[in-house]
């Protein structure tokens, strides 16, 4: 508990991070509690009310089929945040495992780091697109269209975004291994498993938290990019990238319809990044002395 209080106290003076946190909190309230108050379904079609501007009935207007933009933005934002939250444990798990093993066991270091470099050199977006096209239909058959897409996109993004965490963690573990308390623990016969779990992991937690936060921003961007290219979730499923994709054709007449989801992606990503940068500053022991 004392740990957490001190983290909060260290984060408080970071103005950017606090603004980011507030914005994120507002976004979460908007996408989670919004649908309770704003009861129009995001897929409800009202063809007589299509292409409307801002009004009391539709505060953010309607799209080309008369669907309410505010309800669609809420639904889209919820999916974007859900994807980011679901990708994070995969990124952390994979990257954490590779980084810990590479840093701690010298014999594995070479192989695992070559693997990481290989993944860093992969053309990620083409591979993601290839994965989505190859596996979309079979997964949709097993898990239903939205569920299958969700699992596929989360897995695909997770499998291609763990490298940063692995590299950071490896460096931290390598530095940690030189410290006295690790040597002392080894001297009293601590087994590697217990050593990693009890002595190494708690001490590398902070850079991992930072990497995880920054990774969430990347996950949101990647999912929106896939949806924007028309290869993310199924067409009738509102995600922020999909809304942007749908609005592109009529950008000339209705720019607001593209700008709103775009703005929402931008605000979310910037807020997450601001929190990540703030955490980095707050957790980095070197930044305190400045």
């Amino acid at each position, binding site marked *: 508990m004392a740990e957490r209080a001190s983290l909060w106290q260290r984060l408080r003076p970071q103005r950017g991070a606090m603004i980011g946190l507030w914005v994120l909190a507002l976004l979460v309230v908007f996408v989670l509690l919004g649908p309770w108050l704003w009861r129009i379904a995001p897929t409800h079609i009202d063809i007589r009310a299509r292409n409307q501007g801002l009004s009391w009935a539709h505060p953010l207007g309607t799209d080309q089929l008369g669907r309410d933009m505010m309800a669609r933005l809420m639904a889209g934002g919820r999916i974007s945040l859900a994807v980011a939250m679901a990708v994070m444990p995969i990124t952390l798990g994979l990257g954490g495992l590779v980084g810990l093993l590479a840093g701690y066991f010298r014999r594995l270091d070479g192989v695992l780091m070559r693997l990481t*470099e*290989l993944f*860093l*050199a*992969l*053309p*990620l*977006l*083409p*591979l993601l*697109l*290839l*994965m989505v*096209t*190859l*596996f979309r239909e*079979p997964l949709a058959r097993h898990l239903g269209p939205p569920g299958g897409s969700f699992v596929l996109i989360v897995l695909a993004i997770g499998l291609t975004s763990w490298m940063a965490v692995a590299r950071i963690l490896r460096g931290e573990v390598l530095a940690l291994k030189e410290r006295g308390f690790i040597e002392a623990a080894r001297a009293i016969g601590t087994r590697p498993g217990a050593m990693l779990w009890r002595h190494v992991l708690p001490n590398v937690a902070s850079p991992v938290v930072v990497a995880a936060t920054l990774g969430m*921003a990347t996950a949101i*961007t990647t999912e*929106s*990019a896939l949806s*924007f*290219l*028309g*290869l993310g979730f199924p067409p009738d499923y509102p995600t922020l*990238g999909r809304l*942007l994709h749908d609005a*592109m054709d009529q*950008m*000339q007449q209705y*720019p607001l319809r*593209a*700008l709103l989801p*775009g703005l929402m*992606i*931008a605000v979310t*990503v*910037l807020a997450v*990044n*601001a929190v990540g*940068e703030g955490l980095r500053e707050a957790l980095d022991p070197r930044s305190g002395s400045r």
Partner: protein
Amino acid sequence: MLNLALRRLAMAVPTLLCISLVIFLLLEAAPGDPLGEMPLTVPPEVKERMRAALGVGEPWPLRYLLFLKQFFWVEPLHWLDRLLGTDFGAGQQRLISYQSRAPVFDVIAERLPQTLAVVGLSYLLGVLVALPVAILSARHPQGWFDRIAGSLAMLGYSLPTFLTGLVLIWVLAIWLKWLPSVYDTTLRVTDWASLLRQLRQMAMPVAVLTLYNAAQISRYLRAAMLDNLRQDHVRTARAKGLGEGAVLCRHVLRNSLSSMVTVIALGLPTVFGGAIITEQLFKVNGLGQLLILAINAHDLPMVMALTFVFALLIVLCTLLADLLYGMLDPRIRHG
């Protein structure tokens, strides 16, 4: 230098092999037989030859070798034939596109220059923007210029490319009507007027990627310069009475430049990915747009070849960056 080049080349080949294996296994893991299912528009005799060339029905290691043969043996032979007028490659079935029924690599070769132009120009401009920004930022860290540049850089690398592109279209093409929003692919550069039109239509796609590159490079360069500023030789340079500008440019910047090369190499996959999105956004007829078209048409040979070409481009550019790094930094060259 030659030694370094050979060493890096020896590392690039296994990387490429691994990447091709990843692509192959991905296709392999997909249910059904994605490459064997050809659309009805492909003539039966071509279909037979394709199936033989890809080894449909054979065990997977053999098919992987046939897959490699397509990229590393059949294609180079065909290009050699075209260059020298020989016929080594006669009778070897090349990968054909299901959409156009033309060999996939012919289509790719047609579209490669556009993508390379956009990516190359954006790197060049990115470096040109990042250099002065980094120098001015490092001169007074935490000063007003550094703060503004830092915030802009954060915007530059956290905003996804499709968003910056969209905002540019909205402001420059729709609102101010200064630039065309759609790329005219039929335009041929024959005189000054058409060159100007070509530059105008390339401005926005290039600007989007330039913003990202400049943001990334300027931040890394600034950090490297701040590291170098603490070094003893900088104190000596100041102590002997050199002006601050000369110290920064001659003693700090030159030592920091090599780190820029690493940033460029690390950013390559993202920039090629960004190129796919910008091409789609501005309808530039490059490799990225071709990839999306091929995916939507289920043209798997094309998708497979394009993914491989993107990997090849990334590996080649990384190799170039490594060699440049060696040229700039003698420690790498001899180490």
